[in-house]
């Protein structure tokens, strides 16, 4: 009988070895996530341990091949690079190289997000977003911008040399040197081009000017009727002061739209049932985005020179949306932050001037209902009665581990038809075309606007630079060392008939074409009040001759104006305390009204206790403010009960707009017997007093149970955190102990907040204090990955000033690097 044992043992061991080999060679699915190939990832010689290197940035040899002259780079204690080049060409090359060193994954992911190629690396979970972004046409837009740049030597030089720098870094990377995210997600860096820079800009446009509520507004108006809709949605809060101080004169070189307003109102008020085209899956910008900036003239400061402050509030991520750097080339000396992927400085200061931005927030996206000529949906009847063909193209979306998906994209004169059978099973193409200013107006000059701002010194320099700027529209503040202050609504603004763009536009509704002349954009210079500020509120008062609409801040502007108007002999410390101000004007206004309306008899002891908490509250959203928790939950519950007519339609129904909080507070105050307070589901007739009392009774026990003795009550309620770009929990920083809310100047929500705080004093030499929630290195685990978060959370800043030359830095405290061709 043959001995079978050796064979048995061999096969057992073979099986084990093969199994082990396969396990290490391929990723393993863990729930919804899949690990990278474990052998490569875990092996210390090529896997994640090779990404532990904290000195990766000291190697600049890869720059040499692309430089035309030597470049000096000095890193300070926060890993902020100060780049000294002989020419701007070499400067932007070095900036691209350095930013890729620190933020390569961020560059990659940002461009992919705008292009609609995330599925290639993230798989099916990104497919819905990719499909939508393909329909919008990000790649096509980037190509159009690229071709415009090629005929614009200044812009092209900057973006091409920046791309060369990024690619020089990528070219010398070995796979084991890839940032950790590439190893985790198991993909390779893509080569960079000017088109990718355009995609980064597009990504910012998605964040800042993609907001629209036309469809929800149409649904809501269809539900309520025009009269009720206009009553509940009257527009911007009239108590919020406009950005441009009233009394400032406006230019109006085109009055044709104003004269035509009656025609629009009578002839083409858009309506239609928008229910069936509602489920679009369109990703709206995050709630809570908003920014502050202001400038004080020398007459209001202790130094006698202007002070400029800016804190753009954006989605907070790790790595941060910003990368701080200082750039020197010839006569150019500028310090500030840039968007990784874009050359130059976006917000900052030079030796003569400083500038900052907040989002304008005008609605620049409209929806047009397409009237197809027949069932083939290949042509449509245009506004002028002409039949026009729909242009189709097919794009292929590569899906990791899932093959490819063919996406058919339909284009009209207005823009792409982005609604299809997925959104509406009853109609193969519901026919909603998206007209977005960003797509209609590919911008070659926006990059030049920033490059010009980097050198700006005079008011004229500022005006010229800001007039180059196209999108997303920004409220640009400016101050210079000669004492001028200015604020300009910068960017391309659409011409509109009054009322145009509030609702879905029917195919025959007249809509204005073209854009407001840049010379007519609102601007204020050296106002008598001695300061200018913008917090995303409405741009102007009613005297501005052009119609615009949008979603505007209702409360921060009031607080900013109140604080700035009261300042005299202002210092940088005053600016810091305003940026960290968590006082809620909404709460200060609403709490007394709620206290007046609530029926105290019959309330349980613990609920009465909450009223005492509110009575003692100073309306400041500090980390420990239990009053903030009580008010927030209470007012939200009051809103839910008041708008029950709307809420009941949203369950599995079309999207609906809810009136803004200021309108609710106004109703509570002025019309407590309004029928809007009646709850539909009950037989009786409720008043504001009933609603307010019931809301408190409803939220009281939960608050008492959850926050009894909690010294971080508001922080635990708000749950502020900073997530990693790819939402990898271990690379995120959560449970921050910080105050603020969306309606306070310190506009901190769970995932958004002040992404960069900058205060500049325009004395000579110019000095600034800055901080942002993150760190310079985009590499998780690096000492400079998240090192500024604690200081940012505590309201601390870092002093910065322009350094004349590399020799100005102490050798012992800084790292000097040199790259030469």
């Amino acid at each position, binding site marked *: 009988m043959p001995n079978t044992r050796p064979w048995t043992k061999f096969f057992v061991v073979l099986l084990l070895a093969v199994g082990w080999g396969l396990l290490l060679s391929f990723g393993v699915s863990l729930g919804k996530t899949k690990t990278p190939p474990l052998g490569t990832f875990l092996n*210390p010689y090529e896997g994640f341990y090779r990404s532990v290197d904290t000195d990766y940035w000291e190697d600049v040899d890869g720059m040499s091949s692309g430089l035309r002259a030597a470049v000096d780079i000095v890193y300070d204690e926060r890993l902020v690079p100060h780049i000294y080049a002989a020419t701007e060409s070499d400067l932007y090359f070095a900036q691209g190289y350095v930013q890729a060193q620190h933020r390569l994954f961020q560059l990659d992911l940002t461009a992919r997000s705008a292009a609609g190629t995330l599925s290639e690396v993230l798989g099916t979970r990104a497919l819905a977003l990719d499909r939508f972004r393909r329909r919008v046409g990000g790649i096509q837009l980037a190509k159009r911008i690229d071709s415009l740049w090629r005929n614009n030597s200044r812009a092209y030089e900057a973006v091409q040399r920046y791309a060369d720098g990024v690619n020089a870094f990528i070219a010398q990377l070995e796979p084991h040197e890839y940032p950790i995210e590439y190893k985790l997600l198991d993909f390779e860096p893509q080569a960079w081009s000017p088109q990718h820079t355009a995609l980064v800009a597009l990504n910012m446009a998605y964040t800042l000017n993609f907001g629209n509520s036309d469809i929800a507004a149409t649904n809501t108006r269809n539900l309520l009727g025009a009269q009720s809709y206009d009553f509940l949605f009257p527009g911007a809060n009239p108590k919020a002061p406009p950005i441009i101080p009233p009394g400032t004169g406006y230019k109006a070189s085109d009055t044709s739209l104003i004269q035509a307003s009656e025609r629009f109102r009578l002839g083409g008020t858009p309506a239609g049932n928008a229910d069936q085209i509602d489920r679009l899956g369109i990703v709206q910008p995050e709630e809570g985005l908003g920014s502050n900036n202001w400038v004080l003239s020398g007459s209001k400061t202790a130094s006698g020179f202007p002070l400029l402050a800016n804190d753009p509030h954006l989605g907070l991520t790790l790595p941060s949306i910003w990368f701080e750097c200082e750039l020197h080339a010839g006569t150019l000396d500028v310090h500030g932050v840039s968007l990784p992927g874009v050359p130059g400085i976006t917000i900052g200061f030079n030796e003569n001037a400083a500038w900052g931005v907040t989002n304008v927030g005008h609605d620049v996206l409209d929806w047009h209902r397409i009237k197809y000529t027949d069932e083939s949906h290949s042509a449509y009847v245009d506004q002028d009665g002409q039949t026009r063909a729909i242009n189709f193209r097919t794009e292929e979306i590569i899906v990791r581990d899932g093959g490819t998906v063919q996406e058919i994209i339909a284009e009209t004169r207005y823009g792409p038809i982005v609604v299809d059978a997925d959104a509406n099973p009853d109609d193969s193409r519901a026919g909603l075309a998206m007209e977005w200013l960003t797509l209609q107006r590919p911008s070659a000059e926006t990059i030049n606007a920033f490059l010009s701002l980097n050198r700006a010194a005079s008011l004229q320099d500022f005006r010229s630079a800001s007039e180059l700027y196209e999108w997303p529209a920004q409220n640009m503040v400016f101050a210079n060392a000669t004492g001028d202050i200015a604020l300009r609504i910068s960017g391309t603004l659409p011409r509109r008939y009054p009322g145009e763009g509030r609702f879905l536009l029917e195919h025959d509704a007249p809509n204005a074409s073209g854009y407001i002349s840049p010379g007519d954009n609102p601007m204020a210079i050296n106002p008598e009040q001695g300061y200018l500020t913008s917090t995303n509120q409405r741009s102007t008062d009613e005297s501005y001759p052009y119609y615009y609409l949008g979603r505007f801040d209702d409360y921060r502007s009031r607080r900013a104006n109140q604080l700035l108007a009261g300042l005299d002999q202002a210092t940088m410390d005053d600016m810091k305390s305003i940026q960290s101000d968590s006082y809620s004007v909404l709460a200060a206004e609403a709490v007394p009204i709620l206290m007046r309306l609530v029926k105290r008899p019959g309330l349980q002891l613990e609920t009465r206790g909450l009223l005492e908490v509110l009575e003692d509250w100073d309306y400041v959203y500090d980390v420990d403010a239990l009053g903030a928790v009580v008010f927030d939950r209470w007012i939200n519950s009051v809103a839910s009960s008041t708008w029950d007519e709307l809420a009941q339609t949203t369950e599995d129904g079309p999207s609906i707009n809810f009136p803004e909080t200021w309108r609710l507070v106004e109703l509570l105050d002025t019309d407590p017997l309004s029928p809007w307070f009646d709850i539909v589901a009950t037989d009786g007739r409720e008043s504001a007093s009933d609603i307010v009392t019931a809301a408190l009774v409803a939220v009281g026990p939960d608050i008492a149970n959850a926050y009894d003795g909690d010294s971080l009550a508001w922080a635990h309620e708000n749950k502020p955190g900073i997530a990693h770009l790819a939402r990898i929990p271990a690379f995120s920083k959560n449970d921050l102990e910080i105050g603020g809310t969306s309606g306070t100047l310190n506009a901190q929500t769970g995932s958004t907040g002040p992404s960069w705080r900058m205060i500049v004093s325009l004395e000579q030499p110019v000095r600034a204090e800055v901080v942002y929630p993150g760190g310079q290195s985009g590499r998780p685990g690096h000492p400079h990955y998240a090192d500024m978060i604690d200081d940012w959370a505590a309201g601390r800043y870092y002093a910065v000033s322009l350094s004349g030359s590399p020799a100005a830095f102490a050798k012992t405290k800084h790292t000097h690097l040199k790259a030469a061709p």
Partner: protein
Amino acid sequence: MLRKTPIIAFCVLLIGGLIVHLLGAWWWFAILAFLVGVALRPTYPSSLFGSGFFAGALVWLIGIFIYSSGESALPQQIAELFSLGSAFVLGIVLCIIGGITGGLFCVLGAYSRALIQPAAKVVAT
């Protein structure tokens, strides 16, 4: 008296393992371990598992020491990502993975050789 074959296997795999890991992918070491198992022809193929395991574990441990940086929190974060709690535990797991790779493929090599050319049985006297 110590057996020579496992010690030789350990030494070859340690030195060879360092070289192949510095030059190539993780599976180069698996091949090396397999070849060592084939070449050494031990009396008991399974006796090479320990040599391969300890050599593999040591090679990965050395790799951790070469590339770790006290300043980086990345190993801790990766440990959290894999629900391992701490970088220390992660290090132990890595060493075990390196060890199993070395041990398993070394034994596989030895069994392959044993099938083709069985070693003479050592008879106790």
